[in-house]
């Protein structure tokens, strides 16, 4: 009822103790195309859905390498995401210059969160309209963080953001306990399965998604389309084989796609 009165600028509280502008900014993240991340003890995988503005255009870049040991996937205003990626790269390279060492992931996300928080407490600014999944490796292990537009950040075993992300989250929730002992290949496969959940009716091909991985002894990089298509093909072969053996038995999670928010 009061929403319209207290949502003009970010420095106005509502009587219920909410900052509506920040919440509206989080809406922008929910509207963006999906991005998911999952980690094991030694690797972290990120995957995004490639959405092109029209058939004529190319799709937007949603996965950015920040340093050899860190990469991010974004959902929301990609322009804001690009600017923040530049900030993250700059932080990493400055630290490496002074200390000859990779910046610990937990410290990077704190810098990012503090930067986002500033925009929630200045009347002449607006919050960043992008959520970031930060995947990285440091001496304390593999990490996946979600940096929210509000300035909050959380560490996750697996997470999904963007439109239809609830479907992916449900898929991941069922399986996340096993992730820590996953191999690199299993991680990538599950990442693709989770992306598939968000695509619903669209077909999963290597052209409609981007997958990136970082791990022990493996710098952050986007996996090439050919390899991804091979993984997708092997997944489909397995599904068809299982379907042949008794379609009744298999519980395909895409049957009951949960209602989106």
């Amino acid at each position: 009822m009061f929403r319209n009165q207290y949502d003009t600028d970010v420095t106005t509280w509502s009587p219920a103790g909410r900052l509506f502008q920040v919440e509206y900014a989080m809406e922008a993240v929910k509207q963006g195309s999906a991005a998911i991340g999952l980690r094991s003890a030694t690797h972290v995988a990120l995957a995004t859905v490639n959405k092109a503005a029209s058939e004529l255009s190319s799709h937007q870049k949603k996965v950015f390498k920040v340093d050899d040991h860190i990469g991010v996937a974004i959902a929301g205003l990609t322009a804001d995401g690009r600017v923040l990626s530049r900030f993250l790269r700059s932080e990493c390279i400055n630290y490496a210059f002074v200390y000859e060492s990779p910046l610990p992931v937990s410290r990077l996300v704190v810098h990012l969160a503090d930067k986002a928080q500033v925009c929630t407490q200045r009347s002449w600014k607006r919050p960043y309209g992008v959520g970031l999944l930060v995947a990285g490796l440091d001496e304390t292990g593999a990490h996946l963080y979600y940096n929210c537009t509000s300035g909050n950040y959380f560490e996750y075993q697996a997470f999904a953001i963007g439109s239809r992300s609830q479907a992916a989250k449900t898929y991941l929730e069922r399986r996340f306990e096993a992730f820590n002992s996953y191999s690199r290949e299993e991680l990538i496969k599950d990442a693709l399965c989770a992306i598939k959940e968000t695509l619903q009716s669209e077909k999963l091909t290597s052209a409609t998604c981007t997958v990136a991985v970082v791990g022990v002894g493996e710098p952050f990089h986007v996996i090439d389309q050919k390899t991804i298509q091979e993984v997708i093909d092997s997944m489909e072969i397995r599904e068809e084989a299982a379907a042949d053996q008794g379609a009744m038995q298999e519980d395909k999670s895409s049957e009951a796609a949960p209602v989106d928010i």
Partner: protein
Amino acid sequence: MEPVGLSSASSKDSTSLDVGSERTLYPYVTGTSVLGVKYKDGIALAADLGGSYGSTLRYKSVERIKAIGKHTLLGASGEISDFQEILHYLDELILYDNMWDDGNSLGPKEIHNYLNRVMYNRRNKFNPLWNSLVIGGVKNGQKYLGMVGMIGTHFEDNHVATGFGNHLARPIFRDEWREDMTFEEAVRLLEKCLRVLLYRDRSAINKFQIAKITDEGVTISQPYSLKTFWGFSAFKDPSKGAEGSW
């Protein structure tokens, strides 16, 4: 450069005649060599406790090796007050590192590089910290030993020395250092070099500390002295057979 007769308007201007130079021109109280070697379980550093004021051996309890954080030892030769300034910078660095409280910590490699940046930047401003620094440490089983000079020269090696140690100790290290030395062997090697330096370096005193760092932590020994021998017959009657020689 302004002509001698002119003085500038601002009294803070260091080119005016009133203030004099506000950058380091020469050292005053100095420490002599620091030695460092890698051994099987970690790093051993050695230095004497002397602070010379020119050619006077003025201070005899100057500790020139300090622990930095959990993983690093720092030894310094050169201007003692600049060493204390460096310790102050590092105190702050370690404090902020600990305040993160997140399982990550700065190791010897990070400290070495940080100090290199500090030394080089000061040199570029023509206001150097007049020190040669030895950084040694162990982190996660990895041993590290390096050096940074006052002009920003830096490198890593299995054995390092500063000052006179470069000329007198390093040749001995090159001949006798081995990767798998025990701590006792490392100390014997260091003491051999310290003794040579004691005989030949006029700013060395017979009061030493050996510092050791392993994955378990830091130990800096109490000061102790080495046995020396001065009873050579040539010393008993120095000018015998030395007509007109010095």
